[in-house]
């Protein structure tokens, strides 16, 4: 059997495109901050300093979470030039839950659902124009969500 040359080239190119795309897309994840077992450590690794509290960061999270496995969080801010938004759950085994990198076209309003092992302070940290701003809330968890 003879393999059609055109067909062969098309196949090779299609596979090449599939393999090439994801590698270009993903930037560097802050793995060290995600591995930190202490909230301050995670923030030090992520930002090199501790953020100052600001009322311009709006953290929406229930005060009482009935199910720690699914706690909805929304973070927004009216600050300009927002570079990133991060969520830290102080009492989780690895406190950094999520970090979002925003761009010049982003609207600083992000929602996600997180797990909480026990009642804890939750911090939202916004980096805007190179400066750090944070908001925090104490969340009471009725049933822990780390699958115990």
């Amino acid at each position, binding site marked *: 059997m003879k393999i059609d040359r055109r067909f062969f080239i098309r196949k090779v190119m299609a596979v090449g495109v599939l393999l090439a795309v*994801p590698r270009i*897309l*993903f*930037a560097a*994840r*802050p793995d060290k901050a*995600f591995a930190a077992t202490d909230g301050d450590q995670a923030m030090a690794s992520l930002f090199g300093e501790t953020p100052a509290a600001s009322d311009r960061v709006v953290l929406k999270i229930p005060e009482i979470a009935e199910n720690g*496995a*699914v*706690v909805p969080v929304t973070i927004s801010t009216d600050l300009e030039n927002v570079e990133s938004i991060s969520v830290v*759950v102080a009492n*989780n*085994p*690895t406190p*950094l*839950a*999520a*970090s*979002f*990198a*925003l*761009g010049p*076209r*982003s*609207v600083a*309003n*992000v*929602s*996600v*659902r*997180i*797990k*909480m092992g026990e009642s804890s302070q939750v911090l939202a940290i916004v980096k805007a124009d190179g400066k750090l701003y944070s908001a925090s809330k104490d969340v009471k968890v009725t049933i822990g*969500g*780390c*699958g*115990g």
Partner: protein
Amino acid sequence: MGKPIKIRAKMKGDIAEVKALMPHEMEAGFRRDPATNERVPAHYITDVVAQHNGDVVFTAYWGPAVSKNPFVSFSFLGAAVGDTINVHWRDNKGDSSAIEAVFK
């Protein structure tokens, strides 16, 4: 390949709003299998990237503390009805999934 992402992309005036649900176990790695008492290895989405017109408009870095079947919503400017948004994720085992949606 990971399971397909469910996505909704909607224009709200100037603001392009994207909501995505990604079916994934998001295993934290702390749990033990009740039958064998073996630790269940961590398996979770580490990165999510969204692109519009070749521009990365949103990146999420996640740890194992993001809930099972993650939901995320984000917004950006500069899109119009009919434009395409691409969303990709990958996990700590090298699995991935991608989807495309058109703004309504």
